[in-house]
């Protein structure tokens, strides 16, 4: 019976995904929306990305890394550098991934960084 319970729970998790992603447009009801909140949304997308990735790059086991020998820093820096070099020339983001991995994987697998 535990399996059936698990599937019900997974179904519930799917509902959570739908509810959180549709939260403010599930219902027709007009929301009071102050102008400052409206302007603030211009800064939300980049803030969300930064909040997700910066800890993934500069932290390990819940603490800020103190050793610069970490492949992630070099990989991310190389990827970002490539992006700004190739900006506006199509597939710059794809290049960010490829260049970043080309720097990260040898350091990570080869040197254990």
């Amino acid at each position, binding site marked *: 019976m535990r399996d059936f319970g698990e599937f019900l729970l997974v179904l519930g*998790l799917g509902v*959570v995904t739908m509810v959180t992603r549709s*939260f403010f447009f599930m219902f027709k009801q007009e929301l009071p929306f102050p102008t400052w909140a409206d302007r603030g949304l211009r800064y939300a997308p980049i803030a969300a990305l930064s909040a997700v*990735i910066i800890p993934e790059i500069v932290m390990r086991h819940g603490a*800020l890394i103190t050793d610069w020998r970490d492949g992630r820093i070099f990989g991310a820096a190389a*990827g970002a550098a490539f992006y700004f070099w190739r900006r506006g020339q199509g597939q710059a983001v*794809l290049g960010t991934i490829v260049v970043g991995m080309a720097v990260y994987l040898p350091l990570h697998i080869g040197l254990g960084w």
Partner: protein
Amino acid sequence: MFFDPANYKHPAFKEGMRDIFSVAPGIWAWGLMTGVAMVQSGLSVEVSTAMTLLVYAGSSQLAVTPMLVAGAPFWVVLATAFCVNLRFVVFSMHLRRYLMPWPRWQRLCVGYITADMSYVMFTRRFPEPAADAAGQRAELAYLSGNCFLNWIGWQIASLVGVFMASQIPGSWGLGFAGVLALVGVMCSLSDSRLRRVSAGVSGAAAVAAFALPLKLNIVVAIAAAVAVCLLLEDSPLAGEERR
């Protein structure tokens, strides 16, 4: 939604697919490692498959996996997933202005499959909601195309990860490609001074608040960054975003 001909026959549908395709390797690698991580953490292949197909939210899947394995109470698991997904609530506040012209079932469908990357690309492509029906159709078609390719790629990669979990060691670090995809998209968003400030404040806050449970550091970081940027709008630093 992507199964509606009015969307998938629209030129903006292809445009949305093209944009998400630029980060496809990152999505694949990330989906693959999410599948691997679920199984390696002790979830059965059946439940991992159901999670991939139904939940479709990588970070919350990874957050609740250990709780499922440990048999945590239902409501604790659901509340955890809700908190990890709180950033989507912020996104939905933004998307409301674009989606309200559509019927509810369409909004719910498109909401369900709009993950981080699609939201970011959509608001970059359409900084302001369209006022006419043709523009609104183009928006929905773009978002549907973008989400469709994201969904397919993620599902396939994740299922491959679930079924090949024993052959792919986590120590290879393939998941880092997902982080790099987000680095690239973040760079493409850093087109104004205040947006760069937002990225800096948010990153620092996310690290400083990392000890918070349930990935709430992400929500705190977004709030801090938006607040700082709003305060700076009147300062000389604001540049082009000056009120």
